[in-house]
C-alpha cells in the first residue's frame, strides 16, 4: 500500500518517518492550546500515524531553560528508547560557560543526535554564547537547526555559513515561514549545499511542499512538525497530498535527515 492510500484509510504511514522538529511539553504562551500535555499522548499519535522517531528540544527550552530542557530530553531518551531522540538545546541566557557545560555534557550523550538554537527568540546566531556550540556542531558533523522566520536574519545565516565552512545547517519553518522569505532562503541554498530547510509548521506559506522541493532540491528538505505545540497529522498531510512522487516523500519523511546524520560523532537514529 502506498503512502497516500494508507493515510486515506487512516493507517500509519508505511515508510520511515523521522520528525526532526519537536518540543515535548505543552505550551500556552501565545494563546495556543493542545489537547493533551503528556508525552504518552505524543507516542500514541506517533504510533497511530507511523512516525518512527522524533528529535526533541523540550518546550521549556523556548523559555530559556537550557539545562532543564536537556536533562528532560535525557530522561525521555531513557523512557522511550528508539522513539525519542534529542536535539541538544542551546540558549545564550546563562552565558558562555553554561553553554560549554551543556555541550560538553550532552554532545556525546546517548540519544542526542543534533543541535538546536531558538535564534530570533534568543537572539542572533552571531552572539558570542553560540560560537562554542556552532564550532562543536561543525567539528562533530551533526546538523544544527536554527529557529527561523522572515528574512531579517538571513545575513547572519550567511555569515555563520562562511565562518563555519563544514557546518550542516537547517533553517526551520520552511526557511522563513512565508513565501518571500522562503524564496530568499532557497536562493542561498542554491549557493550553499550545506543549507537545508525543515517543513515544519508554517500556517501562512503559500508555497506548498512539493513546489518547495522542486525549487530547493528534493534532497534539501527534512520533515518537522513542532509537536506537541502543533498538530503532526497536518504536517504529514502537507507532504503526502502535495502531489509529489512517493520517492520524494520518502526522502523528506526520513531519508534526507538520516543522510545528514551520516558521519556525525553524535549519536545516531536507529530505526
Amino acid at each position, binding site marked *: 500500500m502506498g503512502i497516500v492510500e494508507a493515510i486515506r484509510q487512516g493507517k500509519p504511514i508505511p515508510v520511515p518517518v523521522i520528525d526532526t522538529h519537536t518540543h515535548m511539553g505543552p505550551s500556552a504562551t501565545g494563546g495556543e492550546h493542545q*489537547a493533551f500535555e503528556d508525552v504518552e*499522548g505524543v507516542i500514541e499519535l506517533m504510533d497511530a500515524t507511523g512516525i518512527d522517531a522524533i528529535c526533541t528540544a523540550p518546550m521549556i527550552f523556548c523559555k530559556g531553560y537550557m539545562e532543564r530542557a536537556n536533562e528532560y530530553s535525557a530522561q525521555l531518551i531513557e523512557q522511550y528508547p528508539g522513539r525519542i531522540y534529542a536535539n541538544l538545546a542551546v540558549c545564550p541566557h546563562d552565558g558562555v560557560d553554561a553553554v560549554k557545560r551543556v555541550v560538553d555534557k550532552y554532545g556525546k550523550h546517548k540519544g542526542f543526535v543534533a543541535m538546536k538554537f531558538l535564534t530570533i527568540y534568543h537572539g542572533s546566531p552571531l552572539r558570542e554564547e553560540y560560537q562554542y556550540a556552532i564550532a562543536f556542531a561543525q567539528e562533530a558533523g551533526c546538523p544544527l537547526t536554527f529557529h527561523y522566520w522572515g528574512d531579517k536574519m538571513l545575513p547572519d545565516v550567511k555569515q555563520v555559513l562562511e565562518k563555519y565552512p563544514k557546518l550542516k545547517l537547517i533553517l526551520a519553518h520552511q526557511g522563513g515561514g512565508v513565501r518571500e522569505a522562503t524564496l530568499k532562503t532557497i536562493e542561498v541554498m542554491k549557493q550553499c549545499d550545506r543549507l537545508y530547510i525543515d517543513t515544519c509548521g508554517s*500556517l501562512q506559506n503559500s508555497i506548498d511542499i512539493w513546489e518547495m522541493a522542486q525549487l530547493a532540491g528534493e534532497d534539501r528538505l527534512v520533515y518537522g512538525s513542532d509537536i506537541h505545540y502543533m498538530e503532526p497529522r497536518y*504536517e504529514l*498531510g502537507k*507532504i503526502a497530498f502535495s502531489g509529489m512522487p512517493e520517492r520524494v516523500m520518502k526522502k523528506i519523511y526520513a531519508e534526507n535527515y538520516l543522510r545528514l546524520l551520516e558521519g556525525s560523532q553524535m549519536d545516531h537514529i536507529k530505526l
Partner: protein
Amino acid sequence: MRIVDVNCFVGIDLKEIRPEVTPEELLARMEVSGVTQSVTYYTLAEQQIRLGNEEMDRVAAASGGKILPCWIASPYMDGVQMPLPEDYLKLLREKRPAAVRLDPVNQLYPFDSFFCDELLAVLDELRIPTIVSHGKGKGAFTILLQKLPEIAAQFPHIPFILTNASHATELATYMLLKKRPSVYFATGFFCGAGMLDQCVERFGAERFLFGSSVNNIAAGSLGLVYMGRFADSEKEKIFHGNWDRLQEGIKWGS
C-alpha cells in the same frame, strides 16, 4: 470520498506578490489533492463587490459544478456596491450563491449589530452559510472574536463558518464551539496537537467543515481529517456531509 473545500479563492491575492490564481489553477490543485468541489470567492470582489461576485458566478457556471460561488458581502448597503437590504434579499434569492463571505478584519468594519444588522438580518432570514475569514493578529480578537459571541446569539440562524483561524486563538475556538451552536470551523488552520480529535469527541463532527489553508492548499487538512482519531462516518461529515446539511437548510423561499 467526496470532499468539499469551503475555503478557496481565485484571483490576485494582494497579500503576496505572485500571479493571479486562475480557475484552471484551482481546478488543477483540486485534482491533485482529490478535492471534489470548492466553495470559492473571487478576490476582485474584496474591492469591487458587485463586479467580483458576478465574475465569480461566471467562473462557477463554467466549472461543471466543481466550483461553487461564494459571494463577498459588506455591511455598507447603500445601493452602490452592495444593494439596499430589501434588494439584497431578492438578489440572493434570484442568484442563489452557495455561501456568503465576510472579512471584517481585513476590510476594516466593526463586526457588531449597529453596523452590520441589516446585512446579518438578510443572511439570518435565508440561513445561508456565512464564511468568515478569521484574519491574523490583534484584529482577529478586537474586530471579530470579541463580537462574534454576541452576533451569533442575535442572529442564531446564520451558520457562521470560521476560516483561516490561527493557532493562537484556540481559547476562542473552544468557547465558541461550546457556547455557540451556530458557529462552525473550517479545518484549514485547526492545528493545536490533538484539538480536532478532542473537539469532535466533545462537540461532535457536525461543527467542522473541510477547508484549505492559504493559497487553496488542502494537503495539510487532508492529513488532519483522514488520520483523525474518530469514526469514518464523522470524517464523511467533515468532508462533505455538514456542507450538504447547511445547503439543505437555506431558506430560499418562493
